[in-house]
């Protein structure tokens, strides 16, 4: 089974997760820029984080054979803090970089005027940079927020096939599909969406333009939810080709629109081998302890 997880926050995960991802067939990941838990209060906090998505995290992933890509944006929640607003001026230079496969996560958190402005501005940046956009739909007042999201996307002129609208559920999936965008689902242990419900949605809507992710982060989440969804699909009678469609070919097709997606195996990585000795990033390695 080959899997690309199109939405996973590896910054908050341990190397155990990287090992488990590789072993389960997740060879490529996309990590979107988002809030961290503790609010950021300056532009420097953001640029250090963006740099870590392109630097340390890509290195860490490679040590375990995983190809790591990122999306870059000022997220909806921190769009409301005036101290963070100026990071918008820094985003375009990151959109030029290797390994940046979309503008994101953009969208709404509480549907404020500030969020409107920052969302529209970054969809324009996606147009200018010829990148797709990863759009977060709000957890609160989700249906109204998703409608408003689709209005903003439509006004931006970004072609809907370049937009992935994520965190959908039973009440929002139809309107996103009707708008012509990709439909994203984050599979969590208890909240948002689970494997069983996902399989039901795939049975209802088919596999076309459906995207599944773990959105594993610093909260209670599971980086192997993509794999578990694949197994649930097979158990429900979907074919291996259906699984490859949803868990590999769909997210690849979406992010390939960036021209920056790299799918080749990590060079020099030997399956089953631990991280390479002596390899460091800015003086840090992922090795701990003395090698025998």
């Amino acid at each position, binding site marked *: 089974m080959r899997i690309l997880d199109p939405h996973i926050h590896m910054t908050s995960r341990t190397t155990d997760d990287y090992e488990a991802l590789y072993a389960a067939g997740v060879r490529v990941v996309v990590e979107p820029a988002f809030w961290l*838990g503790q*609010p950021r*209060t300056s532009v420097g906090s953001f640029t250090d984080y963006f740099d870590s998505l392109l630097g340390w995290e890509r290195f860490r992933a490679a040590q375990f054979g995983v190809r790591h890509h990122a999306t870059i944006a000022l997220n909806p*929640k921190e769009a*409301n*803090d005036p101290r963070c607003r100026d990071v918008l001026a820094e985003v375009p230079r990151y959109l030029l970089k290797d390994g940046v496969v979309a503008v994101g996560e953009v969208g709404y*958190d*509480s*549907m*404020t005027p500030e969020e409107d402005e920052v969302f529209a501005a970054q969809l324009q940046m996606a147009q200018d940079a010829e990148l797709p956009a990863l759009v977060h739909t709000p*957890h*609160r*007042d*989700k*249906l*109204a927020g998703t409608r408003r999201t689709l209005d903003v996307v439509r006004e931006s002129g970004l072609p809907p096939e370049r937009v992935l609208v994520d965190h959908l*559920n*039973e*009440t929002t999936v139809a309107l996103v599909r009707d708008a012509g965008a990709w439909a994203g689902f984050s599979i969590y242990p208890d909240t948002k*969406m689970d494997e069983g*419900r996902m399989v039901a949605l795939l049975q209802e809507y088919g596999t076309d333009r459906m995207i599944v992710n773990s959105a594993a982060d610093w909260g209670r989440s599971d980086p192997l939810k993509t794999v578990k969804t694949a197994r649930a699909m097979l158990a429900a009678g979907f074919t291996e080709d259906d699984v490859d469609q949803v868990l590999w070919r769909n997210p690849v097709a979406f992010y390939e629109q960036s021209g920056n997606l790299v799918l080749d195996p990590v060079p020099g990585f030997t399956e089953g081998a631990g991280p390479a000795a002596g390899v460091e990033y800015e003086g840090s390695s992922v090795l701990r302890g003395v090698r025998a």
Partner: protein
Amino acid sequence: MTEDLPTADPGTDWLDRSCAAITAEPDQVTRAFALAARRVGREPQRPDVDPTGVVHGTVDDAARARLVVALADAVGTGPDLVERLTTLYRQGDGAERRGVLRGLDALAAAGRLAGPDGAADALVAAGLELAADALRANDPALVASAVGPFGSAHLDQHTWRHGVLKLVFQGTSLDAVHDLTARADTELDRMARDFAAERRAAGRTVPADLGRLSTAIG
């Protein structure tokens, strides 16, 4: 100020002495704020119904609220207090941030923010920025501290509604919201009904508190 004298209730004694110290020297509030929980404790105000202290606040929340009032007594409710409270919040940890908001609650409840002369308008505006920051937080105790009397009196309706809904999302009792029925409107009712519909479509439980936001939810 930081020495504990032998007394039956070292907590309140420390608090009384700290308030007096702030009156004499307002800068003392910074150290008092940081030490408050260590001196008065962290227990919930109403342990019988609120064992975690998230809904009705903690002993140190109340102590910091008193320190804020003492600070307002010392420097007034003008620009000096605006600057001091903003700094206490921005440089504060989660508990200190709650303390600033509970302090604004105490001032609001005492009618000190609503003068016809507008003398406290800048303080209210600054407080609203801090409350908005708290409502964006991931810490449920901090979110809950933003919907007390100050939030109830001054938050704009959109922000207030989203704060209420966030409490439901975080599993915090709506008992945390000051005077919920006064500001609950048809739009909040609509938001609650949509949320309940989402949960039912997902085959998940509908939080009981949604029934307090809409009579249409069983």
